């Protein structure tokens, strides 16, 4: 337990100390929030779907969680060659503990980032419909963060050098975001896109957030929670397996 805790704490310390990075990483979600939130607002309203800002805010929060958690997972690659990872790999502790400590740390950082964006959304005019559901929304945020932190670890442990990073960005992270229903409603989609959205774990994270924050679920909370928990288990196992295969 001690090992998982110190590695978790390390991720948190690194996060709280890199203020520039915190501010920089808020740029993209804010751009999406303001440009999309206000840009598409009029069309969305005319289509009779209410406020687009209300609709898109959970998607933007989830996007932040997705990006932050996958990136800190992928940072593993850097750490492996020029950093602290080797120090942990020769220590008399199991790889699984190391992987879990790092992944939980990355997930926690992503959650904090997600909450900061939630506050920005609130400032921009986003209002949760039921305040008593906030703790449940928090659980969905945590599950989403864990799923993608584990995915990032699995990817970071599999890449050989930084060249692969762009591939991951364009063929994994961005598709996960755009196929999740973060920025559009899930009904009346073409069949292919419907299938893609159903296969994307982020869809269920966002749906869980929409269910709890704006009471507009597409599926329902139970389904969302089950899919996320199963995805988390699968991806943590995958991450642990990939991590155990790292040869320094």
């Amino acid at each position, binding site marked *: 337990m001690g090992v998982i805790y110190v590695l978790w704490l390390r991720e948190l310390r690194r996060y709280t100390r890199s203020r520039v990075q915190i501010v920089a990483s808020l740029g993209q979600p804010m751009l999406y929030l303001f440009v999309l939130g206000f840009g598409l607002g009029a069309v969305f309203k005319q289509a009779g779907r209410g406020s687009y800002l209300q609709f898109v805010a959970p998607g933007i929060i989830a996007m932040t969680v997705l990006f932050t958690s996958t990136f800190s997972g992928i940072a593993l690659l850097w750490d492996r060659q020029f*950093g*602290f*990872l080797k120090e942990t790999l020769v220590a008399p502790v199991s790889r699984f503990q190391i992987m879990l400590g790092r992944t939980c740390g990355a997930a926690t950082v992503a959650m904090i980032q997600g909450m900061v964006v939630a506050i920005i959304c609130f400032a921009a005019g986003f209002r949760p419909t039921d305040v008593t559901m906030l703790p449940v929304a928090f659980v969905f945020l945590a599950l989403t963060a864990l799923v993608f932190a584990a995915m990032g670890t699995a990817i970071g442990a599999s890449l050989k050098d*930084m060249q692969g990073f762009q591939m991951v960005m364009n063929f994994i992270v961005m598709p996960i975001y755009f196929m999740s229903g973060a920025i559009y409603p899930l009904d009346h989609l073409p069949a292919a896109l419907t299938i893609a959205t159903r296969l994307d774990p982020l869809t269920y994270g966002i749906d869980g957030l929409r269910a709890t924050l704006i009471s507009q679920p597409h599926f329902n909370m139970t389904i969302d929670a089950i899919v996320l928990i199963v995805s988390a288990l699968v991806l943590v196992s995958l991450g642990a397996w990939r991590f155990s295969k790292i040869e320094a």
Partner: protein
Amino acid sequence: MIHVENLTKKFDDFTAVDGVSFDVAAGEIFAFLGPNGAGKTTTIKILTTLLSPTSGKLEIDGLDPTRHQHEVRKRFGIVFQDPSLDQELTAMENMDIHGALYHVPGKIRRERSELLLKTFELWDKKDAFVKTFSGGMRRRLEIARGLLHTPKILFLDEPTLGLDPQSRNQLWTQVKYLNQHEGVTVFLTTHYMDEAERVASRIAIIDHGRIVAIGTAQELKDKTQKPSLEEAFLALTGTALRDESSNAAERMRQMARMWRR
């Protein structure tokens, strides 16, 4: 303390280490000297459980590193060729994490951290971030950290690479001091002849994955009938240049250098 018999490591069709055998006695300072790509780092990685050998027999303090990984890991400290400190943390925080990873109890951890940081003249800087440290300070901190859990063996993989003569001198003085006072066995690799001659009790010259000669500096000079270790080394390994093919790690190393400034 270290026993290696017929160690071989193959990567696909390339043989990095080819039937290497040697012994290192307890309390000894043993140097691996060789050109680039000779198999020095690969040998260290195998001895420290980071790579598994293709074949051969290994013993660290009487234990097989491939089977008793955790037990072996408790027995050695290592300083890698590439830095492995967390630069966003302070010197003391780096020591603390190491202590936690090696299950060193809190009280001992604090006492030993203080002793080691004082030995390596870093105590004043214990709360400074590692990213503000010079190359020499970082190396010293890595060695101090590697000794925190009182290992029996200290592995140093080209610890003085890129350091100025003052830092190199200081580093070896401190390593020798700890070797004498704590009896820690030191296994080091380097391509600086003068260092090997100055600190090591015995030297193995390795080339193309094979040990070409082994003995004290004097024995190597006598064997080749050369006046200096450098000439003995060239006589044994030839003067051909070694062009290492660039691999993923080397490309990342280049990128890291680029980003550092």
